[in-house]
């Protein structure tokens, strides 16, 4: 990591791997003034006409896009053809609203409804609705078929970008997408991955101006107006990436990854059954981390047992015999949840988070444990607790879980206690790992590094110090792996390090034989293991 000038480098999260070097273009949603309303008939006609125009534009995009993108667009077309929805808007027009006002308020209500859903999937659809809303608004306000003037190969930077805007941009000359907000699970991210366009999200604040940008989809960095050294390092990373990409796909299909004759199990990190739609997911040895916090952010905050059971069960059914490790709610820290986490903690990363919070709120935790105990009989389920400091916490969690199973069985409901493990992310847990009676350990290297290095991981100013390859971090990983090896307990690592091929030699040398990676990194990690195994290096 040394050598990267901190001057104008920004770190986000990877949404799509790859590299882009090109002109920096800021794209922001411009809002023109309101439309001047005509007569009721004129407004109704304007709406119908705008809807027709929008349908035509979307159909055109769908024809070019194909696959996943076409399905997103098909949903938008279906909404435009929904007479019940149109009736509602026409009713508002007949009460005196201008076409654009009526359209927007109806769509906004729908978007709010989707956003309030407990279901992450439905929430993700709200950006498709917002996209549709803006498209028709632009037409109604006379914007017409305004094409984005974006030079070929540009690094496009926006707050967030709707799928249809993404599809309007000509990516045939390459380029990349840098979003200040956005999410790796959004539709735009799926589109970017499908097109092989590098994309980094959650960059936070980035200056409005810049001439040239380097976007590294693997390191999740954006560098503006780079100096010669930055450019040289970037090009080196890009060349390595290009060489490896072509052969990676072929290696993915091989049944197992071997390193010096030992099998390396490669699992994937997900947060929703939808993440398994990724084409590479089928090649994983299982699911090493299913996050569950997203279940908490719906209306009323807390999902019921049935909703949770359905979410877990869907993943177990996909996995079949393969193991699925579900992590109990890891809220708190940088993931506040209204009605659950504690407000106003002076230092939330060192506060009541993870298992600490769950044990403090048994009425919420028990609902999750009930759903997990029921899911356990449906597949190869393992459950792990996050943010564990002492063995007593694990035992308190185990007791609550065992009591929950007993109660379910007494109610005549099929349930069992799954294998119980812990995340190793608090340095104390790593140092005293032999004090835990856990069935498995999973190293959360992001938090482990932040606590060992005393660097807030969300603070970009500390990025150069925040090095997961620091000897102190590796020492703790090696100790945990060594304990597992001696005690015959499986140890895996599910942090960002596992998905970073530059970290792979160190992790294998630490004794790790099980890694859980982001699905989009699976091919590359498998290939890197293969290369390291045959005596090669990373280049």
């Amino acid at each position: 990591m040394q050598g990267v000038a901190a001057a104008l480098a920004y770190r986000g999260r990877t949404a799509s791997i790859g590299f882009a070097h090109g002109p920096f273009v800021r794209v922001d949603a411009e809002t023109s003034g309101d439309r001047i309303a005509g007569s009721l008939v004129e407004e109704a006609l304007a709406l119908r006409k705008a809807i027709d125009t929008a349908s035509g534009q979307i159909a055109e995009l769908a024809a070019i896009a194909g696959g996943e993108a076409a399905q997103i667009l098909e949903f938008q077309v279906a909404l435009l053809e929904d007479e019940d929805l149109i009736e509602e808007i026409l009713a508002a027009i007949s009460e005196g609203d201008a076409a654009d006002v009526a359209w927007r308020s109806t769509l906004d209500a729908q978007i709010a409804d989707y956003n309030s859903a407990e279901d992450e999937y439905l929430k993700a659809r709200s950006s498709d609705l917002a996209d549709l809303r803006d498209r028709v608004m632009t037409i109604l306000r006379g914007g017409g078929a305004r094409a984005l003037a974006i030079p070929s190969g540009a690094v496009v930077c926006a707050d967030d970008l709707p799928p249809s805007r993404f599809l309007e941009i000509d990516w045939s000359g390459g380029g990349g997408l840098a979003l200040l907000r956005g999410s790796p699970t959004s539709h735009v991210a799926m589109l970017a991955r499908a097109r092989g366009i590098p994309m980094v999200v959650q960059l936070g604040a980035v200056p409005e101006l810049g001439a040239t940008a380097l976007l590294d989809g693997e390191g999740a960095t954006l560098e503006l107006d780079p100096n010669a050294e930055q450019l040289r390092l970037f090009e080196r990373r890009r060349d390595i990436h290009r060489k490896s990409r072509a052969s990676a796909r072929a290696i993915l299909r091989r049944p197992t990854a071997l390193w010096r004759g030992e099998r390396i199990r490669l699992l994937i990190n997900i947060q929703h059954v939808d993440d398994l739609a990724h084409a590479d997911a089928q090649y994983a040895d299982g699911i090493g981390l299913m996050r569950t916090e997203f279940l908490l952010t719906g209306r009323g905050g807390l999902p019921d047992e049935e909703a949770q059971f359905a979410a877990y069960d869907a993943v177990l059914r996909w996995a079949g015999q393969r193991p699925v490790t579900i992590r109990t709610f890891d809220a708190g820290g940088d993931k506040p949840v209204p009605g659950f986490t504690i407000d106003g903690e002076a230092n939330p990363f060192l506060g009541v988070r993870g298992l600490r919070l769950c044990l403090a709120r048994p009425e919420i935790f028990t609902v999750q444990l009930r759903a997990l105990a029921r899911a356990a009989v449906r597949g190869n389920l393992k459950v792990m607790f996050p943010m564990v400091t002492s063995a007593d916490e694990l035992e308190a969690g185990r007791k609550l879980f065992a009591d929950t199973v007993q109660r379910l069985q007494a109610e005549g409901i099929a349930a069992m206690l799954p294998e119980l493990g812990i995340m190793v992310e608090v340095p104390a847990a790593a140092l005293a790992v032999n004090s835990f009676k856990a069935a498995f350990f999973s190293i959360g290297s992001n938090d482990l590094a932040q606590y060992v290095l005393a660097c807030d991981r969300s603070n970009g100013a500390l990025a150069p110090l925040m090095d997961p390859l620091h000897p102190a971090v590796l020492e703790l990983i090696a100790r945990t792996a060594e304990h597992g090896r001696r005690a015959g307990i499986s140890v895996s690592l599910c942090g960002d390090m596992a998905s970073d091929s530059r970290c792979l030699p160190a992790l294998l040398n630490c004794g790790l034989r099980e890694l859980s990676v982001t699905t989009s990194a699976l091919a590359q990690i498998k290939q890197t293991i293969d290369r390291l195994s045959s005596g090669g290096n990373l280049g």
Partner: protein
Amino acid sequence: MLDKADGQIFSGNVQLVHAVGMHARPAVKLTKLAKKFQAQISVRVEGAAEWINAKSVAKIMAMRAAHGSTIEIKASGSDAEAAVAALVKLIETDFPDEVS
């Protein structure tokens, strides 16, 4: 809403087996199929107060039918019987991609 419908009312029940419930893809398929029929078709999650127009994708999505829930269908009109049968089949076969 079906009180004044001419002729007989046909109905059916079917369990939603789709892994993530009634989401965008299934909802689009269901409304597209429903629109192929003249009949007035309504659906609801079993026991829900309100019947929903099976031809409105926005309303089908808003119904938020979860995986494993039972969908009730009723239809009236000239091709109501065929409409109910077709929709039941679509849902119970987990919204297959039609060969077209």
